[in-house]
């Protein structure tokens, strides 16, 4: 398929899910970070749990186009920390700011503009930051399974099982955090059907 068309076909549902799931709502993001409203945390555990198992299965079938980012210990941690501060202030991340702006959140437009400026500053400082923070402590494209020297499924399945167990617990426990919207009740079809 034409890569441009393919990109659009993936971006459209991505944006729709960001809006429909509440990820583009700063109130829910900030509620999650304050641990006052765990809906999005549960959503992320669900998504990442299913993602871990799904990618490992696709990969073992030779169908995954994986792309592991190089580990730069300092830059990953420091960048994450700076990101976290901005995330708490704005309630947006790079993708959800675009989605939020498109559902009428005008503050999200400013988050996008600020983001472009932040990107421009990083571009200007790259010559300095690269050697100072990115290159030291670079460990290559490592993953948990590659460090342990085991097949990815051996890590992915237990991780997926743990996520599925958490999802099961959350679904069966009475929902206490806030008004729960019309949940699309699914049977407990956890992403992992391979539970021990």
């Amino acid at each position, binding site marked *: 398929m034409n890569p*441009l068309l*393919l*990109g*659009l076909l*993936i*971006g459209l549902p*991505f944006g729709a*899910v*960001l*809006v*429909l*799931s*509440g990820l583009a709502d700063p*109130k829910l993001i*900030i*509620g999650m970070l304050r641990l006052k409203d765990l*809906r999005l945390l549960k*959503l*992320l555990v*669900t*998504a*990442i749990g*299913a*993602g*871990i198992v799904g*990618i490992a299965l696709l990969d073992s079938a030779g169908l995954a186009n994986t792309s592991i980012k190089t*580990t730069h210990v300092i830059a*990953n*941690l420091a*960048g*994450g920390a*700076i*990101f*976290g501060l*901005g995330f*708490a*202030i*704005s*309630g*947006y991340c*790079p*993708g959800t700011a*675009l*989605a939020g702006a498109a*559902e*009428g959140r005008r*503050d999200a437009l*400013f988050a996008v503009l*600020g*983001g472009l400026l*932040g*990107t421009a500053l*990083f*571009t200007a400082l790259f010559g300095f930051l690269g050697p100072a923070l990115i290159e030291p402590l670079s460990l290559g494209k490592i*993953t*948990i399974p590659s*460090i342990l020297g085991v097949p990815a499924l051996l890590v992915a399945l237990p991780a997926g099982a743990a996520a599925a167990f958490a*999802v099961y617990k959350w679904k069966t426990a009475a929902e206490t955090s806030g008004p729960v919207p019309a949940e*699309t009740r*699914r049977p407990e079809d956890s992403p992992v059907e391979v539970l021990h």
Partner: protein
Amino acid sequence: MTKPGTTTNDGPVLGWLAGGLLLAGVLLVAVAAAKPLGVSTQYVSAVAGACELSSPGACEEVPYFRESKVGFGYGEMVVLGIPIGALLAALVTRRFRKRDVPEPWAARFGPSRALRFAGAAAGGFLVLFGSRLAGGCTSGHILSGVSQLAVSSILFFLGAFGVGMIAARAIYSRREVNS
């Protein structure tokens, strides 16, 4: 379709389980069809595009633009698709509504639109600066990267949520208004 007053006292349309599974579905389709999801790299493409517009020819040598392989291709179309898909979803579900100041911000800093816009811009600035330093954002590192069990992404996740949780607590804790 903008209908204030109707109690769209909006919880999300999708519950967390459906939302999480659909998000994973988008990720898996992307990984099977092309590559993992990512958004923040395309901010570099946008800046490079703006650079090219303002001073044609002077931007190709910028080291970070080269490093990021800026251009207009698959990844840029994904990111262009995000607001279009979001807009369509908001229109179809009748959730499109002009909103300026999110609740927790208003509870803490008041209803000033200008203050919120400044805060959102400052936050967005840090979010993208941090993402570029770390080599990815929530999409590339947390969703795609942690799903691939990448160490870089797990480190980013720890930094982002560790500091994010401390900061959110520090920033929004006073004058608690229960929502």
